[in-house]
C-alpha cells in the first residue's frame, strides 16, 4: 500500500493539478493494490488495458490544462452498471459473458469528466442480498476486525465496491442502493456510502432489480468525496422516465460544517429495536456531537416504520420478478441446450439464476398473482404512501434524521445464515429511506472492541443532499474515524 492509494479523491485532484504525480502513476499504483488485495475477491473484471490507455490520455489533458472535474481519478464500478465493451454480469451466471454495446448514463457522466474505470466489482446477484455471498463469482471478503485470520461479511449488495474502497484498491466506487445496498456494506466496511434522492441519478443502463427503489450512489472514504462524485453522477436523463428535473443545488465544495440551528430528528420507534450496544453508543455519541455543535435534537415519530421491511420485500420482490423476465437466453446471456421451447426458458433461467434470486422471483410472483395482488402488492403500495407521509410530516419539524445504518456490525463471513429472514432483517434501518425515496448517507464513526466499524446514517428530505452532506461532514470530523482506523492498523 503506498501513498498514492491512501489519498482521497479530493486530495488526488489537487495533487494532479499541481502535477505532483502523473495519472499513469496513480492508476498503476491502484492496479498494484488491486493485485495485492485480490484474495478479497472484490473485483470480477479488470479494465487494465483501457484504464492505462485512458491514464495516458488524462495526462495529456492535464498537461494542456484542460482538466475535467474527475480527471484521472480511479473508480471501481459495481457490475450492474452497463459499461460499453466491458463485460457486465450482475454477478450472475445468466450474464457471465454479457458484453453490453451501450453505456449507462451514470458511467457516461463519470467518463465525460475524465474518471478512469479500473474494473467491475462484485455484488450480490442482481443486487439481491446484503452479504455479497450470492455472487456467481464467489464471496467477497471484508478484512475488518482485529483478528486477521477471520474475514467478515462485507455487506451487500455493493459488497465489492465497499471492499475496494475500504481496502484502498479504489479511490471511489459506484454502487446501487435499493433497500440499503450501498449504505449497509459501507457500514460493514467502514466507508462512506451515499444514496441520493430517487430520481437524482439516471437508472438508464443499470440492470434493474426493483425499479421504484433502485438508485445509483457512491462508496468513498470521505463525505467530501461523496459530494464530488454526486456532482458528476447526477443528471436529468430523458432516457429515464423516473429521472428528476430537480437540479442539484450548487454543491458548495468544500461542504460547510455549520450545523448550528439545524433540527435533528431522532426516531423513537427505532430506539426500541434490537441494536448492538456499540452501535447504539455510536448513535448516542453522534447525537451528542451534534448537540454540542449547536443543533437541536428533536424526538420524532415514524409510526409506520415497523411495516417498512414487509412493504419493501413485497414491492421489491414483485418488481424484480417482472424485471428479470427478460433473461431467457434468447437474445443475450446464458442459454441452455434444449430442443424444446419451454425447456429452453425453464432451464436457462433455473441454471442461470442463483438460489436467492429464484426465491425472490417466486415471492414476487406470489404477491402479484391472482388472489394475492390486492392484499399484498396493492396493499404494500398504499402502506408505502403512509411511510412516505411519515417522513414528510417529520421533515416539517426537522431538517435531518440520524439513526444507525445497521442493527449490528459485520458478522463473520463463515457464520451460516440459512434463514433468509435473518438476512432481510439487516435492512431494517435502510429500507425506510428507499421506500420514501429520500437521500441518506452512511458514515463510519467508531470501532467495536474487536475492530469492526460502527456507522451512523443521516437521512434528509427529498433533493436536500446538501443538508445530509453537511450533517455527515460534521459527524465525520467529530468522529475522526480515519484516525481511529489508522490507529487500529486495520490492514
Amino acid at each position, binding site marked *: 500500500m503506498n501513498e498514492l492509494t491512501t489519498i482521497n479523491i479530493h486530495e488526488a485532484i489537487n495533487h494532479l493539478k499541481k502535477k505532483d504525480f502523473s495519472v499513469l502513476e496513480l492508476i498503476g499504483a491502484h492496479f498494484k493494490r488491486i493485485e495485492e488485495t485480490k484474495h478479497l475477491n472484490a473485483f470480477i473484471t479488470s479494465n487494465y488495458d483501457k484504464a492505462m490507455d485512458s491514464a495516458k490520455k488524462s495526462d495529456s489533458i492535464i498537461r494542456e490544462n484542460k482538466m475535467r472535474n474527475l480527471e484521472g481519478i480511479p473508480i471501481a464500478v459495481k457490475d450492474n452498471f*452497463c459499461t460499453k465493451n466491458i463485460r457486465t454480469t*450482475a454477478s450472475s451466471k445468466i450474464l457471465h459473458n*454479457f458484453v453490453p454495446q*451501450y453505456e*449507462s448514463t451514470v458511467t457516461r457522466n463519470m467518463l465525460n469528466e475524465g474518471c478512469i474505470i479500473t474494473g467491475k466489482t462484485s455484488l450480490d446477484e442482481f443486487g439481491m442480498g446484503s452479504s455479497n455471498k450470492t455472487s456467481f463469482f464467489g464471496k467477497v471478503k471484508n478484512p475488518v476486525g482485529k483478528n486477521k485470520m477471520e474475514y467478515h461479511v462485507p455487506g451487500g449488495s455493493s459488497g465489492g465496491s465497499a471492499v475496494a474502497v475500504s481496502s484502498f484498491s479504489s479511490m471511489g466506487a459506484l454502487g446501487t442502493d435499493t433497500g440499503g445496498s450501498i449504505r449497509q456494506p459501507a457500514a460493514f466496511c467502514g466507508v462512506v456510502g451515499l444514496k441520493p434522492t430517487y430520481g437524482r441519478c439516471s437508472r438508464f443502463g443499470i440492470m434493474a432489480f426493483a425499479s421504484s427503489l433502485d438508485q445509483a450512489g457512491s462508496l468513498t472514504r470521505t463525505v467530501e468525496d461523496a459530494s464530488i462524485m454526486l456532482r458528476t453522477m447526477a443528471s436529468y436523463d430523458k432516457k429515464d422516465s*423516473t429521472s428528476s428535473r430537480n437540479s442539484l443545488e450548487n454543491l458548495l465544495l468544500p461542504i460547510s460544517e455549520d450545523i448550528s440551528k439545524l433540527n435533528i430528528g431522532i426516531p423513537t420507534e427505532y430506539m426500541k429495536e434490537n441494536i448492538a450496544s456499540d452501535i447504539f453508543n455510536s448513535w448516542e455519541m453522534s447525537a451528542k456531537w451534534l448537540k454540542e455543535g449547536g443543533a437541536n435534537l428533536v424526538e420524532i415519530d415514524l409510526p409506520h416504520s415497523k411495516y417498512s421491511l414487509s412493504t419493501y420485500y413485497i414491492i421489491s420482490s414483485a418488481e424484480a420478478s417482472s424485471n428479470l*423476465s427478460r433473461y*431467457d437466453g434468447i*437474445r*443475450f446471456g446464458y442459454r441452455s441446450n434444449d430442443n424444446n421451447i419451454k425447456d429452453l426458458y425453464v432451464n436457462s433461467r433455473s441454471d442461470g439464476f442463483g438460489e436467492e434470486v429464484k426465491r425472490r422471483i417466486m415471492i414476487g410472483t406470489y404477491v402479484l398473482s391472482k388472489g394475492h395482488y390486492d392484499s399484498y402488492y396493492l396493499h404494500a403500495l398504499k402502506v408505502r404512501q403512509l411511510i412516505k407521509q411519515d417522513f414528510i410530516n417529520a421533515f416539517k419539524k426537522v431538517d435531518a434524521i440520524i439513526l444507525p445504518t445497521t442493527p449490528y456490525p459485520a458478522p463473520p463471513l463463515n457464520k451460516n445464515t440459512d434463514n433468509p429472514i435473518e438476512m432481510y432483517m439487516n435492512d431494517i434501518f435502510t429500507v425506510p429511506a428507499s421506500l420514501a425515496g429520500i437521500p441518506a448517507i452512511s458514515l463510519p464513526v467508531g470501532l467495536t472492541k474487536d475492530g469492526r466499524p460502527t456507522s451512523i446514517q443521516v437521512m434528509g428530505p427529498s433533493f436536500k443532499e446538501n443538508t445530509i452532506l453537511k450533517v455527515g461532514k460534521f459527524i465525520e470530523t467529530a468522529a475522526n474515524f480515519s484516525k481511529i482506523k489508522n490507529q487500529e492498523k486495520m490492514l
Partner: protein
Amino acid sequence: MTKESSDKTNKSGSNIGNEWEMAIGLEIHAQITSTTKLFSCATTVFGKQPNSQVSLLDAGFPGTLPVINDFCIEQAVKTGLALNGKVNNISNFDRKNYFYPDLPLGYQISQFYNPIISDGSVTIDINNIKKNISLDHIHIEQDAGKSIHDLHPNKTLIDLNRSGVPLMEIVTKPEMKSSEEAMSFVKKLRSILRYLGTCNGNMEKGNLRIDLNISVNKVGDELGTRVEIKNLNSIRFMNLAIDYEVNRQIKMLDNNDKVQQETRLFDPIKYITKKMRSKEDSQDYRYFPDPDLPPIILSNNYISKVKESIAELPDSKQMRFMKEYSLSKYDSSILVSEKSYSTYFEESLKNNKFLESNQSDVAKITANLLTGTIFSLLKKDNMSIEESKISEKDLSYIVEHVHKSEISNHIAKGIINTVWDTGEDIEYSVHKAKSEQNDDRLEYVVEDVLDKNKQKVEEYNKGKLKLFDFFIGMAMKNTRGKADPVAVRKILTKKLSSEKYR
C-alpha cells in the same frame, strides 16, 4: 360458405332461427399512425428487413427504459373524444406478464387498471335503422414482435421489428347481435379512425386486427359462455368466424354440452375455428402498475385543445352534405365513407363558379359524376383518389358545362372516360362535345321552328324564299342569339331540303 355451416344462420336478423341469438363483442387493435414506436425511437415502418427497426429497449436489453411517445397519447385522446368516450385525467401503464419468444421483456406494457379512455360509442346504420354500440374502454399498449414458424422445420424465427409498435385497443361491450352489425361496426370504426388520421386501418398491412368475443343464448336467456377468436385480419374472416362459431356453439348446446370459455384461432383455409393448444385460461398476467413510468396526467386544457383539433367526422359530415347540398342519404354516405372522397368532392365544388347560384344542382351533378364514373375508373385501374387522372378542377369544369346544359350528363361521362383513357385535353374534349351537342340541339331548335311554323314552311316550299331569313331569325331568337348563324344556315338548308319538310 362451406359445408361446415348450416342453415341455422340467419344473416339478416339478430335471431338465428328465432330460437337462438348471438352476442358479439370486439377488441380492435389499431396501430397508431406515429413515426416511432410507443416507448422507443425506432421507426414503425412496415416491411423492412428483419430486426432492422429494433432499439435496445425493443429487444429487452438490461438497463433499458421506456420513454412515452407524446404523439401516441394525443392520438388516443383524439380517438377517445371522437368516439364519445371519457378521457381520464389520470391513467397509467401496467405490465402484463407472460413468457413468449416475441415478447422480449417477458411483459407487455399495456393499461389494465386505469385506461386512458373510458366508455364511448359508435353508431352503426343497418337497413336505415341506427344502433349505438357501446365501448367499454380504449387503452394504449405495445405490440409484440413476430414469430415465424414456417421458415424452418424445427425452429421458430423471431423478428422484433413490430415489438413496441403502438396500438390502441378499442373494446366494445357485447352488444352486436349479428355479423352484419359486427361488420358495420368495424367499417364505421375504421372510417372514423382514418378520418382522424390516428390509424390507417389497413388490415392487409396488419394495422387493424380484430379479436372476436362471441356467445350464444336462447332468446330471453342470459348471455352464454363467451369464446374468444384471436387475430382476425379481415372483415371477411371475421364474418366467417362468426358464422362457424355460432353454429358450433349452438350444436354443442343442443347436445347438452357446455361451451368452454376458451381462446380459439380461425383457420383461413378451412374456415373453421380451432382451440389454441396453450391454455389461455390458466394464464395469470399479474398486472401491476409499471414502476418505470409515472402516471399520465392530462389537464382539461389539454383535452380541449385536442378536441378542437378534431375535424368534422363522417356522421356529421353526412348530415351536413344532406342538408347543405340536398344530397340523398345514399349519395352522401358514399362521399363521406372516406375523408379523401369528401375532400375531393368539396374541393371540386369550391372551384365551381355556379356553386353559389345553384348549390344543389351543382352538388348533385358533381356527386353523380364522382361516385358513378370516377369511382369506377379508380376501381378499374386500382388507383386511390389521390391518384385520380381527373382533378377536382377538371371535374368542376365539366360540371359547370353540364349545369349550363351545354353538355348532357351522359356526354360528361363520356368525356371523363375519354380523358382518363387517352389523356386528351379536357377543355378540348368539352369544347368538342359542346359543339356536337350544340349541333344536335341546333337541329332540334330548327326543327322546332319549322314544326311550329308549318304554314310558313309550305309557303317557302311554294317559292317564298325570303322566309329562309325568317326561319333563321326565329332560330336565333330561340337560342337567345347564341347560335352560330353559319351553322344555323347550314342546318336550315339541310332540313328544308329533307324529306320531312319539302
